[in-house]
């Protein structure tokens, strides 16, 4: 971390970088035999919240974080509420759930309209996403969120599902297979391609965190500062995200039984969540935000984002933040012994380019929130 700052100081102006993930892939000519991750993500950025009055800290959170700004703000508010023994009213909770769903829609939209076409070697479609992002940014009441939902349904029908999202959700297994085999949109074509690649596997999914799980995680985040860089659940790395949340869905169970827990299962889980988001925007169910107060003055919140579970832990004293820790989904999935590394090892690759491509596809399935750089060396 110090090096980053020193370099930034040499540059004179820019103080700090958003970091990136660097992958070192070992390839023996036939398959990937090793994978290492170096992360330069500033996981201790939350330290600028320490020493601040609660209201100021809550103002700083959305300034600090870009793509997941709303989820970060919701997590901060829920953690601080819990630490102060407060509980948000129903209207506030509904507004928070809508904001989370809106941000999730925006992120999944990016994966499907910008990233997927690019991975398929086709032009990305940022223009389609720009309109939706504008509507989401302006949505501040139930009426506007309903219009976001309607716009999202039109866009998803046209660009992702080739049918209304709620009709896609009701497809029977045989009809889903037909869609997958014949669909013209990037999503079904990518699903079909990912199934053939046997990339990924099941290495332990993070369970749905109930309030009862939170005090243990709060203690782990407190006891060891490095826990937020290399988190574990019950001593093991765990994968978070759409697959972990949708594991019990019949379509996911079928997919895993027939094709394994490949990158395709992760994309399918993402599509299942995406198709349900317009309904969640119209009539938000309480599902994305949980919190607990292990001790008076300490709060922890778990918030569901597009990339997985985001945790915020705060200690307050006399109205000020004493300690603030954030554990983001990227650190679960890109743990040095986590789903990315283990999913890549053993993957067949006939060339260096194929090995690099496999890393890119699995990274996309596990969705890091920063850019990636892949190096391949002959083992």
């Amino acid at each position, binding site marked *: *971390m*110090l090096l*980053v*700052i020193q370099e*930034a*100081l040499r*540059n*004179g*102006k*820019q*103080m*700090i*970088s*958003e*970091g990136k993930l660097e992958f070192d892939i070992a390839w023996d000519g036939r398959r990937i035999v090793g994978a290492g991750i170096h992360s330069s*993500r*500033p*996981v*201790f*950025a939350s*330290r*600028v919240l320490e020493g601040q009055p609660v209201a100021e800290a809550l103002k*700083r959170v959305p*300034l*600090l*974080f*870009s*793509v*997941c*700004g709303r989820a*970060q703000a919701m997590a901060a508010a829920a953690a601080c509420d819990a630490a102060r023994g407060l509980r948000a009213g129903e209207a506030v909770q509904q507004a928070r759930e809508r904001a989370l769903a809106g941000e999730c829609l925006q992120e999944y939209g990016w994966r499907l309209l*910008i990233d997927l076409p690019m991975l398929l070697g086709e032009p990305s479609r*940022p*223009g389609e*996403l*720009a309109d939706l*992002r*504008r509507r989401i*940014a302006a949505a501040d009441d139930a009426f506007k969120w309903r219009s976001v939902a309607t716009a999202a349904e039109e866009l998803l029908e046209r660009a992702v599902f080739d049918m209304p999202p709620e009709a896609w959700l009701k497809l029977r297994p045989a009809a889903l297979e037909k869609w997958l085999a014949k669909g013209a949109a990037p999503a079904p074509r990518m699903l079909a391609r990912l199934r053939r690649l046997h990339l990924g596997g099941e290495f332990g999914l993070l369970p749905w965190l109930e309030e009862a799980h939170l005090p243990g995680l709060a203690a782990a985040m407190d006891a060891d*500062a490095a826990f937020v860089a290399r988190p574990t659940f019950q001593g093991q790395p765990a994968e978070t995200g759409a697959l972990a949340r949708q594991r019990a869905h019949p379509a996911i169970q079928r997919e895993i039984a027939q094709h394994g827990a490949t990158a395709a299962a992760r994309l399918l889980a993402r599509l299942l969540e995406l198709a349900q988001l317009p309904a969640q925007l119209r009539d938000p169910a309480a599902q994305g935000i949980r919190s607990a107060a292990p001790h008076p003055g300490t709060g922890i919140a778990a918030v569901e984002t597009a990339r997985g579970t*985001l945790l915020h832990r705060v200690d307050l004293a006399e109205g000020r933040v004493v*300690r603030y820790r*954030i554990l*983001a989904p*990227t650190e679960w999935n890109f743990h040095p012994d986590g789903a990315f590394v283990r999913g890549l090892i053993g993957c067949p690759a006939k060339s260096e380019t194929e090995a690099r491509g496999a890393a890119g596809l699995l990274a996309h399935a596990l969705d890091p*929130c*920063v*850019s990636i750089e892949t190096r391949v060396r002959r083992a």
Partner: protein
Amino acid sequence: MCLAIPVKVVELLEGEQATVDVGGVRKAISLALVDGITVGDYVILHVGYAIQKLDPEEAEKTLALFAELGDSMGTAPA
């Protein structure tokens, strides 16, 4: 947890592109996701796309926050 670091637009290019200054390094980015950007504006950059335009006051506050963060990162966390 992606930090929202403001970058300054120094030149508008064709095809919804612009050049920004990232800590003294010039970089071409896409403006396809934002509207009404002019030279001198601060934007939030994410994987090659400007995702948000900041008003000057917001940009100043955010830059000050990152300067503070830069100062605090020199020491190991407690």
